[in-house]
């Protein structure tokens, strides 16, 4: 990460909002497995999808076109792009590359009406999987997560218990959740409580 001085590694300085929950772990046959994908680069992008210059510029930097269909996502290696609303996307990239990404995007779109905001520390990415996931989701969100309504690749912003989340279904049936930092302790308390009957493992 460019912002770090040479003699210090990221780990020395950085602390994910879920760090102190890493100790929690139980039954290996747990019905719910939580895995934090920490320190990924999270960049919020705003711009006008009707503006081809904008779309072209972004694609040239990301290597994939921005998804313009509601509630969809695209992937390109380490890079994932979530549709958030008609003029807003979340770019999730490899840890530490967000600074460069922002620079590249700005130079590619110089003068355009856009907004690029690094929110890598504002939120973290959590993956939930396991046999208890479907029921856990029913307890946790009002959205219909049944496969008939929630295919792989779909992205939904909705409620999670008494906070919000952006969630994305993966090919393997597991789900990625974007959790706001300040709510992550609440998120974990909820997770522990709601997954009690299935058993929770923190990978």
């Amino acid at each position, binding site marked *: 990460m*460019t*912002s*770090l*001085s040479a003699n*210090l590694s990221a780990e*020395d*300085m*950085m*602390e*994910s*909002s879920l760090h*102190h929950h890493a100790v929690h772990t139980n039954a290996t046959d747990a019905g719910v497995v939580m895995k934090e994908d920490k*320190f990924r680069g999270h960049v*919020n992008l*705003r711009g006008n999808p009707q503006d081809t210059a904008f779309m072209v510029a972004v694609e040239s930097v990301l290597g994939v076109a921005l998804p313009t269909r509601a509630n969809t996502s695209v992937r390109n290696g380490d890079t994932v792009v979530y549709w958030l609303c008609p003029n807003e996307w979340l770019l999730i990239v490899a840890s530490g590359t967000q600074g460069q990404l922002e620079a590249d995007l700005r130079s590619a779109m110089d003068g355009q*009406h*856009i*907004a*690029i*905001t*690094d*929110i*890598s*520390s*504002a*939120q973290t990415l959590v993956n939930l999987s396991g046999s208890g996931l479907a*029921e856990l989701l*029913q*307890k946790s*969100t*009002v*959205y*219909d997560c*049944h496969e*008939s*309504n929630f295919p792989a690749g779909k992205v939904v912003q909705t409620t999670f*218990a*008494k*906070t919000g989340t952006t969630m994305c279904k993966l090919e393997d049936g597991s789900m990625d959740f974007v959790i*706001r*930092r*300040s*709510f992550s*302790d*609440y998120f974990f*308390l*909820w997770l522990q*409580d*709601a997954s009690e*009957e299935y058993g929770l493992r923190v990978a």
Partner: protein
Amino acid sequence: MSQVNRIATGGRIDRSKPMSFTFNGKTFQGFDGDTLASAMLANGVGIVGRSFKYSRARGILGHGAEEPNALMQLHKGNETIPNPRATQVELFDGLISSSTNGWPSVEFDLMEWVGKIGGKMMPPGFYYKTFMAPQNMWMTYEKFIRKAAGFGKLSLDPDPDTYDKVNVHCDVMVVGAGPAGLAAALEAGRSGKRVIIVDEQNEFGGTLLASNQTVDGVEAATWAEQATSELARMSNVTSMPRTTAFGYYDHNFLCALERRTDHLGPVALTGTRQRLHRIRAHQVVLATGAIERPLVFGNNDLPGIMLANSVSTYIIRYAVVPGQRCVVMTTNDSGYQTALDIQAAGRTVVAVVDSRHAPDGRLVQAAKAAGIEVMAGHGVIEAQGSKRVTDVIVAPLDEAGDKLVGAGKTLSCDLVAVAGGWSPVVHLSCHTGSRPVWQEDVAGFVPGPTIQNQHLAGAIAGEYRLSQALNAGVQAGANAAGTQSTQVFDCGDESEGAAQALYIVPHTKPSSRAPKQFVDLQNDVTAAGIELAAREGFQSIEHVKRYTAMGFGTDQGKTGNVNGMAIVAKTLNKTIAETGTTIFRPAYTPVTFGAMGGRDIGVLLDPARHTAMHPWHLANGAEFENVGQWKRPWYFPQAGETMQQTLNRECLAVRNSVGMLDASTLGKIDIQGKDAREFLNRVYTNAWTKLAPGKCRYGLMLKEDGMIFDDGVTACLSDTHFLMTTTSGGAAAVLGWLELWHQTEWPELEVYFTSVTDQWATCSFAGPNSRKVLEKLCTDVDLSAQAMKFMDYREGTVAGIKSRIFRISFTGELSFEVNVPADQGHYMWKKLMEAGEEFGITPYGTESMHVLRAEKGFIIAGQDTDGSMTPYDCLMGWAVGKTKEFSFLGERSFSRPDTARTDRKQLVGLKPKDPTVVIPEGSQIVMDPNQPIPMDMMGHVTSSYWSECLGHGIAMGTVKGGSDRMGQTVYFPQADGRVLAAEICSPVFYDPKGDHHND
């Protein structure tokens, strides 16, 4: 103890699994598959409770949700459950139950005599007519009245059980798993649609489980088992027994309560006791069936008088006959089925008393063929007995059933099965505002028109016969699933004789003088009472309900309402259709609070938000304050310190050296776009056109009414990029506010807003040594007073981390705020604490922050303002742009007559006359302490603290015309009689020239 009423064979009970239970201290035996009610009846238990008003002995009337009498107290200690119906409690070994009323016992209840004697004085509404004088005595009367209140008892200990909720979605939701529901679910399930079917009972089947009819040649119960297992095999169908759909909300949202452990007893304290299913369905099939109506006649509440259909259910489903000698009183053919069932069970049917003069349906023939005496054109006009029915008086009726046409005769019996016709279970259909409509041919209210995607099937629509219900189920299932079906079931139940619409059986005396004829057993509402209500002018059915309490019980009038409405109609010479019905509300049957609270209690009641430095605050003994959802350090006490000592230490550290505050909770909004400045001009009171990059400015945000709603410092990062800060509690509201104006009024402005509250951790350190601390860690920014001035912003590297550095002050001291990505916040905080060690850097919390800012007269929006304060009221006119081109939000309101007044309450400083005094916050302010009450209040104290550095108390408060009253003395009358005094002064108590922060 032997089960005197248990039949040797049959029933859906497992005789190999005996279970013992207690009722009112006596031990009895039942079997697996029993309900508490069937087990009680099996053991010949007669009296299960005492009535609410008159304390009359009451027995079991029904077999399910309709039961008005058998309210129990279950279990002991903190596991006790008040008021479940014995008819809905599944028996388990070791069950402890007792009745909820009756003293000293339900068998011998002294209150019964009070009821007998006082009863005459207690017609409906008697409360309203007495206990009025003297006025102040009501509280005393009420104490006695309250002693008689309530059914069950509550433990005072916390509920030991856990509950939760799930949000489920489906194409077709089927409510009720009787014949109609099962048929509907099968049809919809076979189409592959997502189907949910729920039933309140422990197994699917409903009436099929208590029927000796056949479905396409298969025994009814067997057909139900086959249907149930086919549904269980469908992966697209969710079958939920023991689950009651209790509420039907708009847009096809239903709530259902699943009882997961209640049937196992209090042994299963682990796991979820009850689960609330919040169901969003595309289509809903209501197959909720019908409830049999009792008939209204003298003493019709005696134990031993039961619904005929319930008697049949006890016999066939539970192998229990609740009596030896039975009289059946009916107005339709279904009563004959009960007579046949009783006879088949080997007990005596004294007679079937039929109000109809020429009944001749299939079942009537069968009963006659079986040698059962049928008394056509007769009615039971009165029952007799003290603790159980011993005789009934039967008399001939005219065709219409409203006059006696001959002398009565007495039949001795210990069981009266009453079949007064059927009331469709329309409850759920009412919940979304649809009013049930009276349907003459089925003599009942059926669901009215609705805009919900709702389908009806079976008895709820008046389709009472088994084949009707099944076939209607098929069609409803097909319609809901969008399929076609021609399936037709044959149950050999060709049409029955027409039923007679009879609700009250006439007596030789008028209702007012006849033995009590009960309509609503739980609330002791009688026919006489209803007639009295009508006589007194309570003629709307809603008035009758409210005046007599009819239908207000925990059974919500499931058995009594229609009879009551019919009696009202009769009294007013109207039809039932004209009188109409009251509307049912959720819940269909009572629902545990805990289940609706779910997991959102304790720490999960509301999210607690934490900053990146929270672990450090915990480790360093911080006391916390709730600010919005945030947990903020309030103060950092050290061993042996009082709170005030802590505050003094923290404040002095800032004034004399350096202290540090976690300011991460302040809302932060990233604003980008070429019109960002113009947008700020419109939403803030002051001007932003000239703010140069690298500079910060304080701004006030108003609602259109001109009142302050939020404030904060906004930094210009570049001409097209700003960082706005908001109050900790206001962040979400402010972002919504900005988006509202951009999206609805000014979409043409090129600007985007992104919340970065969670992105940045903010270490705010203040004090004369704060620069020295920062200089140790920051190498690439010139922090000198000349280079980095007050209200300057720089980007730089602090402790190796790319940071945003603000030189802003909320304390009046030289002060810096270092913002770093929150992942590095905890690290940065620790590094700054290290760097500050040599200066005795002191962490401080919100309370010291409040003191320090008050010493400088800085406001806290929400504490010093309350939604009724303009910038001018806060003497902050300096923050209002007078020459701005665009009329910023709220500006127009300043010129309204009341807002323009100069004598409005204004925020001023208050210096206590006695320097040792700290005026309590919230004290009201008066000019004349000797004025008698009511006093003229000039304003109130918004903030007040002990200022250690000044050595006296300080306060801020609102005072009418305060800005013109500088130097005047005001008074603060306290609850304890003290009158404190203070002098009105400038709110800036400390360093008025601002030398310190400019230093």
